[in-house]
């Protein structure tokens, strides 16, 4: 979708409010422009000693003022409402998009960039919609009405004004186009700044412990100073618009005035051929000229906001246009009896092969462990099973149905997954645990907390389960892992995936947690990745991966007997 189409789509959702506010805007402009006209009549009545007419016009004028005031309030209020409501929709849409794009595309983006989209870009667009819409509606009506008035006074000068005035708009859009590149550069630097500060703020302990503060500041400043330089250029080039418009308009005013005076000088000869001119007419014409150029001034004064908003919106639009490449299958799946990799190949980037011609079947009720040195492709297998990534070649089959034909949500419903990189969101510990099952009963929660050993530290926290934690602060890694485990235990899934899920938990607790899992997963499938081989000793099948290939399979006893790679890894544990 083009930016234009999309913005119209959002505005279109507020059709009623939009129409009402356009009407209100029009009524306001009319009641505003009518005031001098009515006043003229009031004065004429007075001169003609018509006191009835005098008072009648005064009352009409009063009525129009009241009407204009009310209508103007609602006009402004509605325009603001339209802007805010459209922005809410856009924000929600971008948020949903973040949740629906394939992880492959997601991983390729800067996190800071997405955040920028949700915050700064949205604010820019909201300011833009409000300013531009308001100015445009009132401006257009003012222009139309003034044109009519000017023609009624003197058509030659009217033509002159109409031809000349758009010059200011031409001029400002010329400058705006010229500015575009500076603004683009500025926006790029702004997003670099925000990426840089995000990286620092998230790793600030590390920065401090590395004694890197000075250099970090230097780095930040190298972008910061560039932004200063580009910012000055951008702001300065944008600031040509307003004064230039005023200069053009003043020049037009002078040209019209001088021509009027010249027409006056030749008045008797001209009047017959062209148009009548008088001092009174000239002065009222000049006031119309000012009135006519005013909306052009205002329009050009919001050109900067418009340009910024346009640029931000194009970023939003580009993101919303990104392909939702995960084409979901339709088949609902339940009770997964088998997970099968069929001659599958995968790599993250074309130049580095990772997994080649991989085949494996995992049967229901089994505990399968995947071991191997780091970088062997263990986590990648998980990414593929969960369909975070798609295989480049070959297939993954669930109950002999190709993963591509299965509905994503029905597939993922079967799984409970704990990753090494824990994810804790801002909220209480209880909210974090109940994340995947908000309607869990207190008993269920109590059980999950016990089994996951969250109860070992929860009592030492000031507010227990209701302690507020956040993504970046508080709690140790091990505690976070326990919370993530409780989360999965609570939903009691058909298949559990544990990817180094207990790597930061002490061995005593780990053992107990692992026992709980074994009890919970009887008759169910578990897939476990762990470096501490003690946790996987009980596995039915152990798959030893190296460089993307299975080099050994079997259970603990058979692999130990074999005295191969597994044996070597295992025996190193206590040496």
């Amino acid at each position, binding site marked *: 979708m083009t930016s234009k189409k999309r913005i119209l789509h959002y505005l279109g959702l507020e059709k009623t409010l939009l129409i009402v506010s356009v009407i209100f805007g029009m009524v306001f402009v009319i009641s505003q422009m009518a005031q001098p006209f009515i006043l003229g009549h009031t004065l004429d009545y007075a001169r003609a000693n018509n006191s009835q007419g005098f008072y009648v016009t005064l009352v009409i004028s009063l009525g129009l003022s009241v009407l204009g005031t009310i209508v103007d309030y609602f006009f402004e209020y509605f325009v603001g409402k339209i802007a805010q409501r459209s922005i809410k929709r856009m924000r929600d849409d971008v948020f949903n998009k973040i949740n629906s794009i394939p992880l492959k595309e997601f991983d390729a983006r800067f996190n800071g960039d997405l955040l920028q989209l949700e915050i700064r870009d949205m604010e820019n667009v909201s300011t833009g919609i409000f300013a531009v819409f308001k100015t445009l509606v009132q401006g257009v009506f003012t222009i139309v009405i003034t044109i009519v008035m000017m023609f009624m006074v003197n058509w030659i000068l009217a033509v002159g004004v109409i031809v000349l005035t758009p010059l200011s708009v031409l001029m400002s859009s010329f400058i705006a186009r010229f500015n575009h590149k500076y603004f683009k550069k500025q926006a790029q630097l702004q997003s670099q700044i925000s990426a840089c500060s995000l990286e620092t703020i998230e790793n600030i302990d590390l920065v401090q412990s590395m004694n890197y503060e000075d250099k970090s500041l230097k780095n930040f400043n190298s972008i910061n100073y560039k932004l200063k330089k580009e910012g000055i250029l951008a702001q*300065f080039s944008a600031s040509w618009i307003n004064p230039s418009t005023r200069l053009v308009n003043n020049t037009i005013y002078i040209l019209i005035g001088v021509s009027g005076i010249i027409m006056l000088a030749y008045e008797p000869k001209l009047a017959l051929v062209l148009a009548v001119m008088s001092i009174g007419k000239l002065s009222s014409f000049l006031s119309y000229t000012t009135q006519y150029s*005013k909306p052009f001034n205002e329009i050009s004064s919001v050109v900067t906001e418009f340009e910024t908003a346009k640029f931000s919106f194009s970023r939003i639009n580009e993101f919303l246009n990104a392909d939702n490449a995960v084409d979901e299958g339709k088949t609902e799946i339940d009770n997964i009896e088998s997970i099968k990799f069929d001659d599958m190949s995968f790599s993250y980037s074309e130049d580095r092969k990772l997994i080649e011609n991989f085949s494996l079947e995992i049967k229901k009720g089994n505990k399968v462990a995947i071991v191997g040195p780091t970088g062997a492709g263990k986590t990648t297998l998980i990414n593929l099973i969960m369909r975070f990534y798609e295989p480049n070649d070959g297939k993954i089959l669930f109950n002999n149905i190709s993963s591509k034909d299965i509905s994503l949500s029905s597939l993922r419903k079967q799984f409970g997954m704990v990753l090494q990189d824990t994810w804790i969101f801002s909220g209480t510990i209880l909210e974090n645990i109940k994340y995947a099952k908000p309607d869990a009963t207190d008993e269920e929660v109590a059980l999950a907390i016990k089994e996951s050993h969250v109860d070992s530290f929860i009592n030492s926290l000031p507010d227990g389960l209701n302690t507020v934690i956040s993504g970046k602060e508080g709690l140790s890694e091990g505690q976070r892992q326990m919370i993530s485990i409780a989360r999965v235990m609570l939903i009691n899934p058909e298949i559990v995936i544990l990817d180094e899920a207990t790597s930061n938990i002490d061995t005593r607790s780990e053992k107990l947690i692992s026992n709980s899992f074994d009890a919970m997963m009887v008759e169910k499938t578990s897939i476990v990745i762990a470096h501490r081989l003690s946790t996987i000793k009980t596995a039915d099948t152990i798959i030893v991966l190296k460089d993307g290939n299975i080099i050994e399979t079997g259970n603990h006893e058979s692999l130990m007997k074999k005295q191969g790679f597994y044996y070597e890894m295992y025996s190193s544990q206590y040496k």
Partner: protein
Amino acid sequence: MIRKVGDVYRKHFVALTIGPLLKLIEVVFDLLIPLFMKAIIDLNQYGDPALIPNQFSQKLGSFIRLFGTWIQDNQSLNDAIIGGVIILVMGVIGFAFTMLTQYIAARTAMHVGTEVRECLYAKILALSKKDREQFGSGRLMTSLNSETYQIQQAILFFIRLVIRCPAIILGSLVFSFILDWKIGLAFIALVPVLLLVIFLVLGQSSKKYTSIQEALDDISTKSSDDISGARVIRAFNRQNEESESFGQTTEAYQKKSINVHKINSLINPFVFAATALITLLIVFLVRETLLNGTDAEKVVISSTIIAEMAYLAQIFFAVTQLPPVLLDIIKGGVSRRRIDQILTLTPSITSGNKVNDSFTDGEIISFKDVSFSYKENSKNYALNNLTFSLKKNGTLGVIGGTGSGKSTIINLIERFYDASKGEVLYKGINIKDYDLSILRTEVGLINQKSRLFKGTIRSNFLMVNPNATDEEMTKALKQAEAYEFVNKYEDYLDHEVNEGGSNFSGGQRQRLCIARALVKKPEVLILDDSTSALDLLTDKNIRKHLKEMKDVTKIIVSQRVATIQEADEIIVLDKGFVVGQGTHNELLKTCEIYKEIYETQIKKG
């Protein structure tokens, strides 16, 4: 020394005053243009400046005549063209001055913005963990990005428009006063009322801006939570619930914004109503003269009213232009206060000024009866009465369950926090008095969370030791068992590192972090559970390399007995209490918990 946003403003005081003043020149010229036009018309009517009844017009007319007569046969045409040229020249001069102001505005705004950003960034880096937790990282991000931007905008508008609008109002008042002093007085009374109402409205809305800003913080926190949890959210199928709760957050923001808007929308209609009513009032007041005066009186009063209307329109225009400008300035003020909250916070941990250069041997780190609580004045200690001392080049092992207080020890040695009770000594000097940057240079920490920075492997290494040679880096890679995979990259050390090191696996990242700490060549090396993502073979090899490094003091925090059993001293922690302290063999005899841990690990094996 800059300590508040105001200090940055003060630094740019000259630009902040001269800038708006230069704009005045354009305003004066702008206000003069209609009068010149009137003079040209009057000249045309009366033929001789001396005959013009109005004094201003007379003077301006003579001024036009000063330039001589160029078109002999048509004096009117001559006057019109000369007058036109004069106005045009004035316009151009005004334009030039305005552009100068615009440049000053752009320059000053960006300078102030950049400087505030710099101060704030430096301040954030200087704050301790505890200090930062007061604000939360979402807030720090907003301040650093949107709020400095807000300040920038405020300065921009301040210089560009803050003088222009009042000057137009003032000028119009003066001219209306000259035309008819009674009406002028009415206008003078009108303006303060207009401004008072505007300020009342803006005062109301500025109060609410703080809460809007907070609602925006919520959106920011929710978004970044969601971005970092992309995998988990998908795995749990929680996309719909996520968007619902995000929808509530944006809804709250929307409601607050619309509420403020309800108030702000009052301004323009009010100005309109006030202007209209004042006009009507003037006409109503002079109705006697208008209806019953002589013809001459009526003409005079009518033309005056028309002229006054024009000035009223000017005031109207300027007054309506003012609010958005003021709004931006108010927003800037709110941002300024929020930034100042961070800037004025005294860091709870500051560097001492002592160093111990003569230290060669002896106790490098000692804890004397140290207790620590994360909450102030709380008796609920995360670590209780810890005493130990570690000799230079010795090895300390710390073992204990999750939440036992292991990481707290590290936090105290790194001075992320200060002890609540007791004292920590580094090289015999209280750590609070020790030079912080030297301390942190000498201590190398390998975290649980292995974080890399965007750049290259080399740039990550150079961060800790700018003088590291390629040989040293290669050596560190080998010691960290990372050489094998790094060497596979064609660009070797210059291999790219994505944001957060996302292009490496967990184990690769951990090994790179270990290598990075080794490149630093620290005197004290702290390993905080830093091999958890490594397979045991690799872990063992790294341990072997570390053991070979004889001139480093090591503190190893781990849950594996195997990792720490050879330490000179081992501290066993349980729920914040020291339950055992001694060598491996001693502990096996004296410490039940240690024995238990050892046995579970061995038995399982």
